[in-house]
């Protein structure tokens, strides 16, 4: 097994290279040298500088923080539920965030002021977190949490469908459909400014849970015996996921799969330790999202291919391959 520090350094290096790469790609067709020159030195009359600073730079930063959030929350959820099939969407957080955004899109509020949509999405996610905490209540077991999450996801999904169903305006409906596919294309600095504090807060909460997640490897009862406060741990995980994943949905729509597949891939390199997997998975998530966002723009430069669509198209076969390999090893 690779040394942990080396792996972290490699992932961080890869994320940096990919982030740099995303700056150089886009429909404006600016040469790499001009791109960088404009980004660093161009003045406000330079159209290339505007493209770089207002479009590509926020898109790159958005990809970075969306990836970190998805990878980290995915690893935390798998660690918390002790289940390699868990992902942040399981809590109903992303579904509820999407519902908030969809309501704003449908009502036309999104057009009135720019931050209405991300604010509604984050609001939806936090509301979901509160419902989860109330419903799963005083029970210390994570089973109640999974069941409540499944129910909440279903409810948010149904309400989102209802909005689409009743939508009198086909344009609004298609706008909603496209938004839900997930994309980094329209991220602005204003949106980043709104989402980033929530993401960072979520990251801190999830990292604070790492020792408890390690202890939880031995089961809930043994972890409690080791001094882990299970209720506090659940609070950390739910709020951490809600804040970071709500903020992801707010700026990028619904991006699935990364949270499931990244911890799964990296567990083979890091080993099973849930605490160590958090940082590796955060960096791995950033790599996967940035790479996919490059692929989106290289495969169909002028078709506005959606990140969420490509992610699932790459991720699902990869995941099937992993499952197949695991099955063969066990046989």
């Amino acid at each position, binding site marked *: 097994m690779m040394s942990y520090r080396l792996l972290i350094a490699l992932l961080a290096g890869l994320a940096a290279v990919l982030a740099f790469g995303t700056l150089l790609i886009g429909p404006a067709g600016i040469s790499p040298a001009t791109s960088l020159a404009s980004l660093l030195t161009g003045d406000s009359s330079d159209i290339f500088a505007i493209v770089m600073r207002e479009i590509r730079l926020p898109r790159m930063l958005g990809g970075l923080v969306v990836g970190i959030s998805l990878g980290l929350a995915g690893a935390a959820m798998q660690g918390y539920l002790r289940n390699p099939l868990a992902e942040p969407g399981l809590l109903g957080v992303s579904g509820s965030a999407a519902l908030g955004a969809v309501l704003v899109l449908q009502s036309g509020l999104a057009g009135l002021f720019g931050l209405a949509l991300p604010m509604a999405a984050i609001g939806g996610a936090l509301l979901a977190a509160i419902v989860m905490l109330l419903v799963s209540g005083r029970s210390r077991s994570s089973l109640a949490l999974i069941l409540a999450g499944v129910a909440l996801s279903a409810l948010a999904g149904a309400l989102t469908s209802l909005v689409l169903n009743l939508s009198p305006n086909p344009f609004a409906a298609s706008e909603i459909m496209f938004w839900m596919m997930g994309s980094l294309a329209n991220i602005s600095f204003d949106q980043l400014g709104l989402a980033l504090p929530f993401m960072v807060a979520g990251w801190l909460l999830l990292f604070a849970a790492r020792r408890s997640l390690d202890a939880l*490897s031995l*089961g809930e009862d043994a972890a409690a*015996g080791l*001094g882990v406060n299970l209720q506090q741990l659940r609070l950390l995980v739910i709020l951490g996921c809600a804040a970071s994943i709500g903020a992801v949905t707010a700026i990028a729509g619904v991006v699935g799969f990364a949270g499931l597949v990244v911890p799964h891939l990296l567990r083979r390199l890091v080993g099973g330790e849930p605490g160590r997997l958090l940082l590796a998975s955060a960096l791995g998530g950033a790599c996967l999202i940035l790479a996919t966002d490059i692929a989106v723009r290289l495969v169909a430069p002028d078709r506005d291919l959606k990140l969420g669509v490509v992610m699932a198209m790459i991720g699902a076969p990869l995941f099937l391959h992993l499952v197949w390999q695991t099955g063969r090893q066990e046989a």
Partner: protein
Amino acid sequence: MTLALEHLSVQRGGRAILSGISLSLRRGELTCLVGPNGAGKTSLMRAALGLLPFSGVSNLAGLAEAERARMAGWLPQEREIAWPVSVRFAVRLGRLPWRGISSAAEQEQAVAEALQALELEGLADRQVTDLSGGERARVLVARLLAGSADCLLADEPTAGLDPAHQLGLMEQFQARARNGAAVLVSLHELGLAARHADRMILLHKGRIHADGPPASVLSPQNLADVFGITAWFGETEKGPVFQPLARLDKTV
């Protein structure tokens, strides 16, 4: 500090699981907690640690979580290790309550001693998922011992193990008691309990039915009343031997 309970009761779903349990463990003693299925052995241990709501007094349950974890180690019956982690990592988890209190060298020292006590040095870098049931049970006991708590509570640590592993684990608990710890182990194997226990507590329907040396607790009357069995109890040069013989003709 060891474990002291006063009038501890546990209710679940309107039913009394434990009623009026008062006991205190003594340092240097291996106490075996025995009783039929459903007698309340697991509930007693979990309530004592504050992992289950109860009424009455437990000196451990009132402590802050980390402090309690340093005072009392807890080994649940389920031998769960969720991820393919190394044996060393699993044993290190036992030192979690001591983070920031013990130095890194002390932490590693305790882990090394626990690995050595359970003869796991050779397996330290193996993944727990590759181990046999008996090896896994040893890893978890090593995790418990690594915590160097003064009071150890282990719930059926020998269940499902072969005789050599059972004897090996009981010797570990006995050794820990000889070193000054108070050890409470719940067991279904009365023979094992009779051989190793300094003191035996017989639990029946949520109450302490008998408490004392194995020979007095495993009296024919107690065995008939609680387990509905007859048994042979004898002294050999290797210590007491207990063998259940027959089921009494009545429902238990």
